[in-house]
């Protein structure tokens, strides 16, 4: 069992070890969906939601797998649960809000392959977090992801109207901005104990 305080877990995952800016997790959706603040925010919310659900599921499954002594099934069961959850969410969104579905486009199924979500499940298991800690960990990770996404989206909205050098247009400039953001987030090092 791990005794980290909830506050420190939260600060750690959301700011210092931000999934996107420090672990490169979820870069695909980060690059794809962060061109508008609004979609970025929605995507962030969706990811946070799925993250929390899968973290809780993962906690339960891990307990089960430890009980039946089959840790080698960990990865496979985590991913199955996450994939199904995402597909449910996808269908639900398509039905209830076609506009949102159009906005997120093909990136909704890509939440499945959003490494950040599986990473939350895997990392919390390897760190031995309790239920509440797992919840905070997932929440912090999701909020950190959303924060990075929204900051990036704001900058990208502005970059659309700037005369970026032609060789750097597109992904390159986004990666550079992400790098600079990652540098700025280094300032949070040491916060939260």
């Amino acid at each position: 069992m791990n005794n980290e305080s909830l506050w420190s877990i939260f600060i750690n995952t959301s700011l210092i070890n931000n999934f996107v800016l420090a672990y490169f997790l979820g870069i695909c959706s980060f690059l794809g969906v962060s061109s508008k603040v609004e979609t970025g925010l929605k995507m962030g919310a969706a990811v946070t939601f799925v993250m929390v659900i899968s973290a809780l599921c993962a906690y339960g499954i891990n307990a089960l797998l430890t009980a039946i002594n089959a840790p080698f099934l960990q990865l496979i069961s985590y991913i199955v649960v996450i994939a199904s959850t995402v597909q449910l969410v996808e269908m639900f969104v398509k039905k209830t809000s076609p506009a949102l579905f159009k906005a997120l486009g093909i990136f909704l199924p890509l939440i499945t392959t959003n490494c950040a979500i599986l990473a939350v499940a895997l990392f919390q298991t390897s760190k031995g977090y309790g239920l509440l800690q797992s919840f905070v960990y997932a929440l912090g990770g999701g909020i950190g992801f959303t924060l990075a996404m929204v900051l990036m989206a704001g900058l990208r909205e502005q970059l659309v109207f700037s005369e970026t050098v032609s060789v750097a247009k597109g992904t390159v400039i986004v990666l550079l901005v992400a790098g600079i953001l990652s540098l700025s987030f280094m300032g949070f090092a040491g916060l939260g104990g």
Partner: protein
Amino acid sequence: MDLFGIYKNTFKHGIHPPENKDETKGMPIKQFPFAPVLIIPMTQHIGAPAQIIVREGQEVYRGQLIAKQASYVSVPIHSPVSGTVRKIAPVPTISGSKAMGVSIEAFPFSEQNVYEGTGINPENSSPEEILTAIQDAGIVGLGGAAFPTHVKLKVPEGKRCDYLILNGIECEPYLTTDHRVMLEQGDDIFMGIRYLLKVTGAKEVIIGIESNKKDAAIHLDKIKPADLPVKIQVVPVKYPQGSEKMLITATLGKEVPSGGLPIDIHVVTVNIATTAEIGRLLPHGRGIQERVITITGPAVKKKGNYLIPIGTPLRYVLDYVGIHGEIAEVYMGGPMMGVAVSDLDISITKGTSGILVFSKEHLPDNEKVYPCIKCGACVDACPISLNPSKLGILAKFESYDLMVNDYNLMDCFECGSCSYVCPSHIPLVQYFRLSKSRHKRKIALHQNTSHA
């Protein structure tokens, strides 16, 4: 809003360009001679062009009707001179396109007496009669926009007018016509106010005057008839206070709703020179055939305020006042919102409030355009609190829809404050004018296709 009274008597933001009014503000209005040939375009006002009712070769009196209004938003045109109609053909106009016009050759030795009609009296005529008389006199806003005055004065059904605001601000640098009109035609102004009160039904009249024309304010206050509910309000000098919306905010502290008209907040504004013209013409049933124009600028020899017959060719005007050196730019109107002239063959119209002439040595060098550094100077200058910086960037990337929908482009009235303060010399006003025209074109095209 008005917590500390900072905005009292003026509006938010705005700029303080150099005034340059000292040279002409002390010069009384002088009559300008008649040019040998006067060219009168039919598009001197906003709205449908007037319809010519004279023939080539016909002799006309000064003040005689030569074109009648084409529709409600249109005014008739009177002959500025007694003479012979020589030609009816397209003539150049300030906008660069051509419009039908009448050329009249003046009788060389005529006394040029003005044709008199039947005058009307403010006391015993109905508002409708006065409105018709104003339209018949061919009166348009003399401040520069040349919008038919009778349309503006007509209070729509179900609306009421509480305040009549007379615009004596004249915030454009260099121009002093309204200043001289207030000093010299005070009685005409108060006569005009009687007509306007009857037409609009307003309870109170406010004459807004900037503090650099205190003498005019004192003069008007002195000769003010006791029976008129007139208040003279002196406001601080700031550009563009002469804009209708800014003037209303400065005098009443109210704002005209976006996309709305002053009448929506029970106000009618009229230019002070227009008021004087109403007071001068209506009692005699005359039509407008001349107007006061400030001719100034570093290149002009005989600067001054002149009463110039409408239709006088610009070339004749410049020859008469004399020019130092080589002319580089000529503006009609003030330096902030005036239009550069591309052709000296155009003539003076009802909307011309000033003529500014600059020679090569008086023009600033073509300043280098830098990228926008988002310094925010334009944001602090824009009288309607737009974000010209962002709008400029969007215009560069042709995002016209975004400009209109999210950044209120259509509220811009092109006062030029943003371009004036921009340290990067970005032609913001030109961007906005272009964006607006393209947006309007797009809307028009869209409507065409959806109707088809």
